[in-house]
């Protein structure tokens, strides 16, 4: 981008900064506006998730997984629960599977809304951020109807769910989807095709596919670089094979493939895909089936280990659970997608201007709770 010369100034985009999506310090070498090197410093939000998991029982780990990625805690539960059920070979009935898919996809919509909103906010567009948060609140109302909580749910348990659906759930969700569908097009026009937004995001922070794979970047960021990789299809878990939805991939419509605009484009289209999935899931939702049916009284998995990946809104969320037969886990390791997304920042962010680097950081949509665990 720019040839860097002259005396370098070290600048701390410090832990307390409006654009770092949480508590993250970027130590940045700049010459004027052009940034030559970024070294992220993390750990400000480290709450020893893995050490906690070694001292609590398997059910009690679930409230801790909520608090890792607090913007998508339903999918964090989902990942842990799928891994545990595969470890203990538990087969849950269809009603539970469908409710889990509905909840995970609604949470994906809510998390993408906030991801795109914050990305727009980093570039200065304040109003779309508030419109998206307004719609996110409606999804949180639906979650609150079901399990009482709005942000950290502890809803999906090993072998079932904590609560069954309330009677008014299906109508409320369908009303929301009908209300929300036209709004997605409005967001795309208000933000996506706005020339200043395109000028600020096209051809910026280009992440080629090999760099993405070698850095282990996954999820919308990887799909933005043109790699068609979605765990719900390529490494299927739960009942995702019963729904037909396609995987949006960055095509470089406004610039080269893999730039910030493509990541934005992939997220907007993923919201539309999730709406399709929720609609299909609600049609096929079986009426009967008790959500507590497959729940073991005492969770004591057989000795052994399992590594299971699921598709969280930020990418491959992997749980490595090692159990030694007792009722507390021997070791739980969470592979966090935002952790690898942040590691690629220096590779694709160096050489750009100051406001671009913060735009790129916003387009990667990281959450520090998940990175620091």
């Amino acid at each position, binding site marked *: 981008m720019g040839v860097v010369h002259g005396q370098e*100034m070290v*600048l701390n985009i410090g832990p307390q*900064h*409006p*654009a770092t999506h949480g508590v993250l310090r970027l130590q940045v070498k700049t010459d004027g*506006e052009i940034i030559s090197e970024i070294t992220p410093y993390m750990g400000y939000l480290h709450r020893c998730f893995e050490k906690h998991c070694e001292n609590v029982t398997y059910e009690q780990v679930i409230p801790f997984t909520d608090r890792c990625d607090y913007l998508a805690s339903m999918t964090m539960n989902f990942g842990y629960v799928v891994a545990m059920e595969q470890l203990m070979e538990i087969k849950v009935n269809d009603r539970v599977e469908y409710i889990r898919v509905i909840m995970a996809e609604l949470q994906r919509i809510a998390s993408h809304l906030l991801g795109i909103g914050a990305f*727009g*906010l*980093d*570039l*200065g*567009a*304040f*109003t779309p951020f*508030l*419109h998206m948060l*307004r719609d996110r609140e409606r999804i949180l109302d639906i979650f609150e109807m079901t399990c009482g909580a709005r942000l950290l749910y502890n809803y999906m348990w090993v072998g079932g769910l904590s609560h069954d659906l309330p009677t008014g759930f299906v109508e409320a969700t369908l009303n929301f989807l009908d209300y929300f569908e036209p709004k997605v097009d409005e967001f795309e026009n*208000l*933000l996506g095709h*706005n020339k*200043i*937004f395109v*000028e*600020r995001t096209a051809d910026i922070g280009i992440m080629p596919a090999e760099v993405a794979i070698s850095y282990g970047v996954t999820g919308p960021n990887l799909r933005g670089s043109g790699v068609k990789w979605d765990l719900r299809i390529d490494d299927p878990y739960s009942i995702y094979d019963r729904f037909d939805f396609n995987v949006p991939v960055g095509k470089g419509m406004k610039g080269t493939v893999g730039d910030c605009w493509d990541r934005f484009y992939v997220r907007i289209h993923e919201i539309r895909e999730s709406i399709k999935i929720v609609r299909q899931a609600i049609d096929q939702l079986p009426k009967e089936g008790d959500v507590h049916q497959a729940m073991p009284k005492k969770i004591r998995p057989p000795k052994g280990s399992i590594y299971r990946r699921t598709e969280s809104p930020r990418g491959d969320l992997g749980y490595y659970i090692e159990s030694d037969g007792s009722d507390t886990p021997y070791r739980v390791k969470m592979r966090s997608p935002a952790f690898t997304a942040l590691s690629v920042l220096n590779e694709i962010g160096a050489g750009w*201007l*100051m*406001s*671009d680097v*913060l735009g790129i950081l916003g387009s990667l949509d990281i959450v520090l709770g998940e990175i620091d665990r």
Partner: protein
Amino acid sequence: MTVDFLFDFLSELLSDLIGSGPVLIISMLIPCLMLFGFITIYALIVIYAELKVSSFIQDKVGPMGQGVGLHAGKWGLLQPIADALKLLLKEDIIPSSADRPLFILAPFMIFIGAFISFVALPFGESIIVADLNIGLFYILGVGSIAVLSLILAGWSSNNKWSLYGGMRSAAQIVSYEIPAGLSLIVVIMLAGTLNMQDIIRYQMGGMFSWILFDNPFVPIAFVVYFISAIAETNRTPFDLPESESELVAGFATEYSGMRYAFFFLSEYANMFVVSAVAAACFLGGWHSPISGFMDSPAWGVFWMISKTFFLIFIMIWLRWTLPRLRVDQLMNVCWKVFLPVALINIFGVAIWTVVFNQ
């Protein structure tokens, strides 16, 4: 106009008591205080307007005034006063490593820059503080004092973020004054004078005699002037100097309390000055759109202020719709788009007036 009018009136009254010197000072002080009062009232109104308009755009209702304790008025009317009081009462921190004298000077300079350009603004037929014959030129010249104070503020608070903000604002305001000036030359060519009152008198007689509809090139000049005026007052999409999501608060990072209030106030005052100039030069100043209707000098003030408020509304509306431009895109737009368009415009208007020898 009012200064000499006051001077004659007072000198008859008190000439025997005190010499002509103090009378001149008094006759200058009175309009100053009136202007200062006008600015503070106007600032409260425009803060309230910004709160309400931005909230409506974002599907909110803005401050509504319910709630325990200090009531914010029926429709949140007391909210701007509450803001002003808060800023006055807040502790005024000066960072220890800051360059004290410059740090203290910067807010006053920026306010003076905005304040003295009010002098040449025509509010009505005879309501103008000083009817300078170089009115427009004076306003443009005085407007650039703001640049100095922004750099001063950026440099003196000894903070990397404000340094960035200061440098960016220097580049932005200086470079956007050129397209603004060039597009005003179109007005001067048509009106033939620099005197604000004469420019407005030139546009007498109904809406279609305004300079805006004089010939097809002037609307382009109006748009160029209006957008570069937005850039001059650091409003989105050009609010890079104090972009809250990148530079924390740009040049105003270290300021708090009363000094921050001055930056705030002068931003709104600049907005008023710029929109008043646009209203006076392009939209027929204190003339009413329909020639006979409500055209008396008293109504002139109403028309002038309503046109200015309409332009301010557009500025607020733009602020809550568009994202922010990057620094080099900012320069790119100014030098590669506005400058050539403004130059071609002057050329176009010249040919048009010669061909149709108005």
